[in-house]
């Protein structure tokens, strides 16, 4: 299975990519990984 990475780094990105992450996980399961760059480390926790 091919690996798909979603990269986020700020809270707005986490919020806006959450639906995409969930939709891809549903379809491709564990081959989808979420990578945080840590641009805004403390703001990320709520988005997903």
């Amino acid at each position, binding site marked *: 299975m091919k*690996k798909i990475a979603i*990269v986020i780094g700020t809270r707005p990105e986490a919020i*806006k*990519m959450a*639906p995409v992450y969930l939709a891809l996980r549903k379809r491709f399961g564990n081959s989808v990984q979420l990578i945080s*760059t840590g641009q805004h480390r403390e703001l990320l926790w709520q988005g997903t």
Partner: protein
Amino acid sequence: MKAGQSLSHLTARLLVNLEDHFMMDRPDLVLAHGDTTTCFTTAISSFYHQIPFFHVEAGLRSNRLNSPFPEEFNRQTIAPIARHHFAPTELEKENLIKDGVSSSLITVTGSTIHEAVQTMISKVTPASKACFSELNESRPLVLVTLHRRETTQLLQNTLHGLKSAALSRPEALFICPVHPNPLVQEAFQTYLKGTENIILTEPLAYPQFISLLMRSQLVVTDSGGVQEEAAFLGKKVLLARSETERTDGFESGLTQLIGLNSESIYKTVLDELSGAVCTINFPKINSLSRASEIISNEVQRVVG
């Protein structure tokens, strides 16, 4: 954010971190969103490692390289790297075509933020609502978020205008979740602290923020994301910036560009607080964009 990190340090750090990750655990396809330094460095790293990069929320343009800074530069640099572009609307698709992107590489998806807000509304419970003892049922609420880098010098004007408005309307409550950028923190502390009906708070958890947004009479922001969220919820938004590439709320007249002039901000906020509460209903769930599904379909077409 690390305190006082410069764009160069941030960019360098993210590029190195991404490379380390791609070397260790190479993906076959990478997706990132929008126009941040994260998205910019992710596109560059994907390019260096020759991994296909898909760009979500592609095609926003001011066509002024310095504004918004550095986002417009990021957008223009990301576009030639992306193998596929997910444009929120036809407008962004047109922008990409003008920049020479083949229309076969562009899919119009709608905005993922509408899906996110809808999900969050269903999760807002009495327990997750933001609690401020100063906020009672009858008190008009003005929600304020200001953070933009290129407007930090001009933030002072905006804050002066807001403070004057708050002093003129003591019955209204101004809640300001303050961005962690040290320059922004300092400006808010310097210019607004100690005003009785202005609350400076840490950035809120997303369900709390959405609950406050739903409760608010007026939103003053320089954030494109908040503009989108507020427009979706049918809120009156005063955009404290000189221009915007986002069209959310302009058609309905609920979003208004007010610039960065202290006097104009003061007057507009007072006018809005004097008017009737103006909201429209947010779209029903069946009229929502299915952005995430459309993006998944395109990903499936590529990775099989």
